């Protein structure tokens, strides 16, 4: 792959090009793959989109584990379809990242080596069936807030991928909510199970939106270039304002003793977030980091002979077509 050597501040036309580029973004135009862009814009997008793709792919594991145990035909079909969608999201996102000049192989290698990050939320285990409902409602709920924001992204392929993905996530969100509401009004064991799932997933879900704006050094640049259109705290706030009343309405307890409603702003204000844990997990010390990576590596290793066979078969077909 030829690496693009354009868009660096030391280039003679950088200043002029940058002004033009920023003017396009200010006008709300989308930047497309062949367009001039600052190298840093490209780098940030590759980082974000590939992380996002990895999250979809790794994210199949915690929920996928429950496909074989789903308790009804309908739930099993729904979960299969959901996890299939997540794989599809991974696929569009890898394609979107490829438009920036990186290959899927390079991205996969970065994931398997442990160099690339993916959403922290998937480093937690799914302990019971209720986790599937809570993930659908809350984790996908937070993902939707983030992705709706990213659908406005200045980079065309990412923005378009987000539009498509959001439509599917909205479905997952509805199905997750429906299951949680059912279990919250269900048998004693179902009610316990769903409350326990909420207790475990609440803080990791809030942390999905990322560190507070004051601790998020990339944010100003990402906002200026329209890669993001809202800050982490704004996204988190939107999530809270939608979900807190609905969870309370369902009769569930939210495990935050400081949570309160602010009459003046109409916002739900959360208590202190356990950021120590967040940084630990993101740096590899979460409950499932090692297991997730091992699962991805195992599938990669065990699939190697299959990919080789695919390649050999394709070569043979090409050779035959040439004859």
């Amino acid at each position, binding site marked *: 792959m030829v690496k693009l050597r354009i868009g660096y501040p030391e280039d003679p036309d950088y200043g002029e090009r940058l002004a033009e580029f920023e003017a396009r973004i200010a006008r709300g135009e989308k930047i497309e793959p062949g367009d001039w862009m600052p190298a840093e814009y490209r780098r940030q997008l590759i980082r974000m989109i590939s992380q996002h793709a990895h999250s979809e*792919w790794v994210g*199949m*594991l915690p929920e*996928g*584990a429950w*496909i*074989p*145990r*789903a*308790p*009804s*035909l*309908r*739930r*099993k*079909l729904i979960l*299969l*379809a959901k*996890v*299939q969608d997540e*794989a*599809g999201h*991974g*696929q569009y996102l*890898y394609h979107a990242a490829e438009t920036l000049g990186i290959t899927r192989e390079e991205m996969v290698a970065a994931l398997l080596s442990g160099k690339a990050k993916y959403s922290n939320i998937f480093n937690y285990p799914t302990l019971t*069936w209720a986790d599937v409902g809570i993930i659908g409602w809350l984790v996908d709920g937070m993902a939707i807030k983030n992705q709706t924001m990213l659908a406005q992204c200045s980079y065309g392929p990412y923005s378009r991928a987000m539009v498509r993905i959001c439509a599917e996530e909205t479905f997952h969100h509805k199905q997750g909510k429906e299951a949680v509401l*059912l279990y919250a009004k*269900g*048998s*004693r*064991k*179902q009610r316990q199970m769903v409350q326990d799932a909420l207790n475990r997933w609440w803080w990791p879900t809030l942390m999905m939106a990322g560190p507070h704006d004051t601790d998020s050094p990339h944010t100003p640049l990402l906002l200026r270039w329209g890669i993001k259109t809202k800050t982490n705290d704004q996204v988190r706030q939107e999530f809270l304002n939608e979900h807190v009343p609905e969870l309370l309405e369902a009769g569930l307890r939210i495990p935050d003793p400081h949570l309160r409603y602010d009459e003046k702003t109409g916002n739900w204000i959360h208590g202190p977030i356990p950021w120590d844990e967040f940084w630990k997990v993101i740096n590899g010390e979460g409950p499932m980091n090692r297991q997730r990576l091992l*699962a991805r590596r*195992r*599938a990669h290793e*065990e*699939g*190697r*002979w*299959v*990919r*080789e*066979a*695919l390649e*050999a*078969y394709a070569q*043979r077909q090409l050779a035959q077509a040439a004859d």
Partner: protein
Amino acid sequence: MLDPYLKEALVARLTAWADDEVVLAQRLSEWVGHAPILEEDIAIANLAQDELGHAKVWLELRQELDGSDPDHLVFFRDPLEYQNAVLVELPKGDWAFTMVRQYLFDAYENLWLKEAAQSAYPPLAEAAGRILKEEKFHLRHSSLWLERLGQGTEESHRRAQEALDTLFPYVRQLFQLLPTDEALVEAGILPDLRALEAPYLEEVEARLERVGLRPPQGGYVPKSRQEHTEYLWSLLAEMQSVARWDPEAKAW
């Protein structure tokens, strides 16, 4: 309207088909998230959904006949009550095992569904015609994999041949009649599965040969759908674990 004996016979037949699909879907779903390429994660999740959807169709037809609840049949029947063929319950193995099994099963389904679409029992004919449309895609997908594996590398060929050696004898079980099937065949409701075995073998052996694979001679053939392997218990134990965990739960 079906007379009581035919009704009972059809209930048994529909259950056997549903059990095949449920158990196969369970094995397929074990791959989701672990396939050799992301595109195949998508394909296999889709395949598992289709097969499970077929089970649902058969159980809903059964429900029309005897009022039984499909979920109850799937999640609360014991291993000895399951009527699936051994072919579908064997552990998923490697990708070659999974794809060779899928090919053998899809080829079988395509064949009998085509006949069942002419059934004298209209709901069955209609359902078979609908399912056949999906099964044509399955067969295309699994035939292509058979070809890629057979004509890929030495290793893929070896693995596909090994899978075939294990799996092939079991396909013969698929063409056996249940004790009550005879009456259904006579009434024109069920195709005579025994008569489909020869065309099946002809078609499948021709394709195997084309991709450089050899069907093995001999091997153990289960004598009825009462026969299972020791793998079924744990497959069902996992599948039914949540549903059976809370006897007080009214809905999932």
